[in-house]
């Protein structure tokens, strides 16, 4: 893996970042653990989807769709595994695979380092992620999952806001270019 390389498209200069060894694995595991334990002590923390934020961040940073979707798949399957019996393996996996792919694809075309861009993209990805979850539940599980609720909008805003700060922390895991 190269440390850094440039993608030049239509005069756009975008960096592809590499991370310290084990950073992705550590961050993913940490997010999953927090996602599992935080709601126990802080029930309102259940509104966060830390695995999704990790998927979005590494997708935007790595900017490789294949890597992004595989990472999204792995994180989603792990999240499915840690979820209750009502969540079959693949429910979050599919959604996060798509999000990983989209984030990597968009990250390869846009500058996603700016906090505002990160906020907007995370908000959008969160909505798409929930839409994919709802679609899967409706089609495969025959569960009447609503497409949009106010809670979803709030959750999207909260996650986008958290993502801005979380991504700054994760930026520290990058190898210096």
């Amino acid at each position: 893996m190269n440390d850094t390389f440039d993608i030049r498209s239509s005069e756009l200069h975008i960096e592809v970042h590499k991370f310290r060894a084990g950073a992705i694995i550590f961050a993913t595991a940490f997010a999953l653990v927090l996602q599992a334990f935080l709601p126990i002590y802080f029930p309102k923390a259940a509104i966060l989807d830390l695995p999704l934020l990790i998927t979005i961040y590494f997708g935007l940073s790595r900017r490789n769709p294949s890597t992004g979707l595989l990472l999204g798949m792995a994180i989603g399957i792990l999240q499915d595994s840690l979820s209750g019996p009502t969540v079959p393996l693949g429910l979050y996996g599919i959604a996060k695979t798509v999000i990983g792919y989209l984030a990597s694809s968009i990250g390869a075309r846009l500058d996603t380092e700016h906090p505002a861009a990160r906020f907007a993209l995370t908000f959008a990805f969160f909505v798409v992620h929930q839409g994919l979850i709802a679609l899967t539940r409706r089609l495969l599980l025959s569960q009447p999952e609503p497409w949009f609720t106010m809670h979803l909008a709030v959750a999207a805003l909260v996650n986008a806001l958290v993502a801005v700060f979380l991504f700054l922390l994760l930026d520290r895991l990058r190898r210096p270019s």
Partner: protein
Amino acid sequence: MVGLPSRHRSLFLLGGVVLLQLLLLAVQIRRDSQGRLIRVWTVGAVSPFERAGAHGISHIRETWNHYFALQNTSRENEELKRENGALKLQITQLQSKASEADRLAALLKFRQTNMDVPMVAARVIGWSADSTSQAIYLDRGERDGIRRDMGVITPDGVVGKVIESYKDTSQVLLLTDKDSGVGAMLVDSRVQKPVGGTGEPLLVMKYVSNEDTSVNPGDRIVTSGIDRIFPRDLPVGTITDIKPGSTFKQIRVRPAANLERLDEVFVLLTMKPLMKKDSAQPNSATPPAGGPSAAATSPALPEKP
């Protein structure tokens, strides 16, 4: 992924990964009525092909049966034609046997009605080789007690008389022969006149004067017994036509027996009178008389060849 552009490579990868997870989901999800979702999907994916395959095979089979298998049909047609011919022949044989059975039943009934009259049942085995003479051959002869000048009858009436008797066969001169004759009388008027043949299908009643008004068309004629060949009151025929002649009337008589189609006949071994045919009808039938002694002198009906 070799040969695919890199931007498409990730798309294919995305599709594959999502598909795999969909399958993973399908394996886990269970529909209450239809089992696991993967089974539902598999059945749903396969059944259209199965239906199409079954429909296609059915169509091909129909096409084959209706068009390409016609050569077999042609062969089957030939076989069916042969079978049809054989069956027609069989039907004809069965009809003939049924007719024969009816005829034999009538003979048996006649025989049982006249159990006390010695007679021999015989089968007609040939006709005279000379077309100018009306004669038949029977399968019974001297061994069965048949002698010359014995009367031959059927349940319908007089047939003729035995003119030659051989060891196992005998020759009978039919009533229609021009040299044949029988003593007869009119049933109603009891006028006795001979009836003879002319070599034609109809008989003639002889020696009835032109002045005799007691003879009319439709009158029935029976044997008179005067010839000492036939007993009295055996049906001879029915008058069909009467014309005045130079001295005697020309009276044509239709034979009571069907002399043109004879299969089985009875040869009378005696002059003992038979029961009248009228009394032998089913409605007026009487139990067989005569008993064992008569039966012992009368051979049974001939067996079929």
